């Protein structure tokens, strides 16, 4: 029998339900089959015209539609799908009655171009000012757009659908958001505030302006042909990340509560850590210290050493800078073992699901623990000699995995890591 508390005397936090949607498909089964087969979900964009764009591919979720289409609406739909799957597996609570809070990683919300253009058409003149837009905005003609474009709207609607308790938290820590949502859930359970938490990361924002913004920062791959080859983490010729959509939902519970109700225990969130980089708005400190500190804090939180980690689910965005800095940070902590621990980046196949990535990759890490099989990093044909990781290149690897570190690093100096294990320590 294992102890109901961890080595620091805190409640052990386990995962009892998971749901996932990516450009590869909906659900754990379809995603796992395609991930381990090395399939790519990246494709040429068909949702909107791609003329004049430098990057014309993305990991869009095209098999889900919302009407009228908004990125925020798609974001909500993907979160709803993933949450539905997670709750079904977990069997927790009852319909529309989840016994705990919601922590939602979601992109900042804005009025979007189709709706802005609708305003423009309603104005009825050719030299348009914001005062004209204000004039047509009032009087109830566009009332639903207020609710749709509130930052809290996705969370509010999830609360209505799933009956989570209390005030839902919508958060953004950029590309680390999904990991932060999980961390907030872990902390709440450890504090004894709740026995369960619903942690969701969701992203539906492949739209022209979002793509252009990242493009103008030179963050995106421009290797459009073939689109499936664009995301190549740790490869010599990587040139940027590929935007993608998706969602991941996890039901976290205290081990005690999960055991008491006979819930499936899919894994343990053994440790979480975060550390802010103050060097630059979009770049990592060249000495790697914030990443190193983040990884060390996570190991300390789990009460583990680098020797206890036997797989790293990398942030691995496929940008020249991220992958280099991730190696620098990991190798500083893991020493020579950095070259021996199998490392893989799910983003090679699903792309970078930005706000959802931390949650999506935590789920893939837990599936890795379940199946004892590491999904590959595809497009790993010409390794970057400056990054001597043991990359699980191109085909899945069967391997004994007991503890996975999942890293997430984002704009604004956001670094967060998680350690996931199969069994309570």
């Amino acid at each position, binding site marked *: 029998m294992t102890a109901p508390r961890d080595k620091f005397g805190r409640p052990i936090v386990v995962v009892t339900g998971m749901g996932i949607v990516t450009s590869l498909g909906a659900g754990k089964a379809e995603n796992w089959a395609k991930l381990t087969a090395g399939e790519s979900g990246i494709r040429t964009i068909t949702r909107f015209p791609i003329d004049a764009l430098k990057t014309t591919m993305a990991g869009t979720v095209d098999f889900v539609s919302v009407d009228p289409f908004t990125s925020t609406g798609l974001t909500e739909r993907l979160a709803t799908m993933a949450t539905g799957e997670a709750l079904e597996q977990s069997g927790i609570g009852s319909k529309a009655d989840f016994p705990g809070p919601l922590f939602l990683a979601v992109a900042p919300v804005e009025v979007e171009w189709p709706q802005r253009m609708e*305003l423009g058409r309603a104005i009825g003149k050719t030299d348009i000012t914001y005062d004209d837009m204000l004039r047509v905005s009032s009087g109830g003609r566009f009332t639903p757009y207020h609710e749709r474009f509130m930052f809290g709207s996705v*969370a509010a609607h999830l609360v209505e659908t799933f009956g989570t308790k209390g005030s839902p938290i919508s958060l953004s820590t950029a590309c680390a958001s999904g990991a932060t949502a999980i961390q907030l859930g872990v902390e709440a359970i450890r504090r004894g505030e709740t026995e369960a938490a619903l942690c969701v990361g969701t992203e539906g924002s492949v739209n022209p302006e979002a793509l252009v913004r990242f493009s103008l920062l030179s963050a995106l791959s421009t290797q459009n042909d073939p689109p499936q080859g664009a995301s190549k983490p740790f490869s010599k010729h990587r040139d940027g990340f590929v935007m993608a959509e998706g969602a991941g939902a996890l039901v976290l519970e205290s081990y005690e509560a999960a055991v008491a109700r006979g819930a499936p225990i899919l894994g343990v969130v053994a440790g979480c850590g975060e*550390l802010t980089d103050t060097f630059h708005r979009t770049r990592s400190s060249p000495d790697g210290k914030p990443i190193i500190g983040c990884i060390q804090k996570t190991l300390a939180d789990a009460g583990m050493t680098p020797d206890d980690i036997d797989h790293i689910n990398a942030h691995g965005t496929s940008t020249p800078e991220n992958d280099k800095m991730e190696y620098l940070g990991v190798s500083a902590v893991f020493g020579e073992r950095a070259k021996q621990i199998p490392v893989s980046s799910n983003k090679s196949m699903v792309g970078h699901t930005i706000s959802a990535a931390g949650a999506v990759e935590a789920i893939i890490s837990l599936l890795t623990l379940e199946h004892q099989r590491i999904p590959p990093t595809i497009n790993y044909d010409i390794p970057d000699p400056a990054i001597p990781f043991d990359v699980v290149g191109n085909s899945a690897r069967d391997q004994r995995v007991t503890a996975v570190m999942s890293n997430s690093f984002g704009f604004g100096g956001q670094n967060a890591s998680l350690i996931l294990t199969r069994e309570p320590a």
Partner: protein
Amino acid sequence: MTEITTAKPGSTEVWITGIGLATSLGEGIDANWDALTAGRINVDEKNFAPYVVHPWVQVSLDAQIPKKGDQRQMEAWQRIGTYAAGLALDSAGVKGNKEILSRMDMVVAAGGGERDLAVDTAILSAQAKGNSAPGFLNERLMGDLRPTLFLAQLSNLLAGNIAIVHGVCGTSRTFMGEEVAGVDATRIALARIAAGQSDIALIGGSHNGERKDLLVLYEFGDFNLRDRFAPVWAREQHPGFALGSAGAFLVIESKAHATARGAKPFARLSHVVSDMSPRKRTGDVTATLEQLWSQLGPREGGGAIITGATGAEPVTSEERAFLQKHADFAVRSTGTRFGHTMETQFALGLGLAALSISRGALFPAGDSSGVEIEMAGPPSQIVVVGAGHWRGEGMALVEAVG
């Protein structure tokens, strides 16, 4: 009805040891206090007519954001917040203290999305002139958007800028979701310190109300106050909020941590609670507020309430119904005095509550509506209330350290 989420105070007492305010009434706690005491309100009825806004009082940014390069990398809302965060760190006596800043936790409540109005209107005008070629939008966006604007639009880049400019780099989390994001940022920071998961945190937010893109968003729901300023409690026939501009940040820390470094408290932060009322029926918000009120722990009668009531309906009437049940409390509206600063309003209320307690007096009543009554003695307990214009309710209890 949803249950309450509450930051339960453990044995760890949490103090407010730093307050940073940069608002439409001025910079710093003294300027804001003096303006409140004098009953001064800074309102602009002309530049955004017919809409009413509370403009930010310009400051010498160099005092808190010394590098011009940093100032250029931000838009107004981030400059306001980064400035106010610096004031809070100064107020707490931790500015430049690398040992403390390197482990200080930060929870910011933020919106985002400052638009380039010229780009937006140029694209809409071109569309109106018949330009509908495929890729037209892409071409204009690729050509016209400033690369750095994106970073001013990302919600978490307020925290990012505070980290870069002031070196706050323990942890950084940004909560979104309008008014209640400010409540939850405080709730989580308090809960972590109370449970020993954190020793010291910087919390708060900032808002620039002088933005036509924001006015458009709220005009979809007819939430903007038009034509003439009126106190929040005198808007029933003419409801709406006047967007405000403010940065409000607090440093909160465990009593033990503050005592060890010789820091003096403004006040104690005892409880923070929040919920999301379904708002399906009349009375839902009133009931939620009443329930939150009951979660705040033991209180003496006849205290004070500082509320972020918006002036928008129906929520302001719902809140008035709640306040009428507690008519012995002296109510003060931050909305009347500062406008509605959305994610920032709760931190602003907390700052004013802590300030009022430390100065031994509540600032004077602000209108003749009868909602705001005078308070004779020094306040020892102030409840800060926030009910969002659309969703989300929260409260905090701020008390004298004793």
